[in-house]
């Protein structure tokens, strides 16, 4: 199982899903109301490393973080 966590203002509790790549995660999240409207402007990290590779292979225990637009300072 892969854990998905939603950071900052996305009001959704963490999920645990079966996924073998980031594309699997994308497919699942596109079906979830309250999450899917954020996806076009969210970045992604796997185990705290930023990635923009949808073909990235996931293994059980990986943590996928969903990062909406930022504004520090």
């Amino acid at each position, binding site marked *: 199982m892969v854990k998905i966590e939603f950071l900052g203002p996305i009001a959704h509790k963490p999920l645990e899903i079966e996924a073998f790549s980031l594309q699997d995660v*994308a497919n699942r999240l596109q079906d979830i109301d309250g999450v899917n409207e954020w*996806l076009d402007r969210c970045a992604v990290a796997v185990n705290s490393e930023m990635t923009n590779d949808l073909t990235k292979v996931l293994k059980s225990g990986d943590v996928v973080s969903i*990062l909406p637009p930022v504004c*520090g*300072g």
Partner: protein
Amino acid sequence: MELYQGSLDVKSIFNKWLDEEIESNYGAFIPFVGIIRAEDNIEALSFDIYEPILQNWFNSWVERAKERGAKVKMAHAIGDVPVHTSSYISAVFSPKRRIALELIDEFVEDFKANAPIWKYDVVNGKRVYAEDRSTPMSGSGILAKKGDR
């Protein structure tokens, strides 16, 4: 990198950083201090931080600065920061001014674009996400792409 609950104590952080580096033979110390302005009836701004990714981001800047003989430092607030107090300090120490001036610009701009920090206005005690001032991070949008099902 230092994270604090609530407003930053700018003077004590400056003192600490100066004490840390005063013997390091740097000829330039350039700090940037972010202060919350009173506007749009806000009482405060409030911040969420995702520390593991922020630490990775900061570590990459430590390396970039080191390649140029310089050192970067930063401090940021977590939670509510009232108007007229500081939420963010970054600084560059370097042997000469030119590298410090260039690095502080690059460091602060990349911070605004890619540090995993979320800002909220606090109005009447409620937090409202500052969506209109927020920027999608590098690589945003990949999860919106349709794949084979």
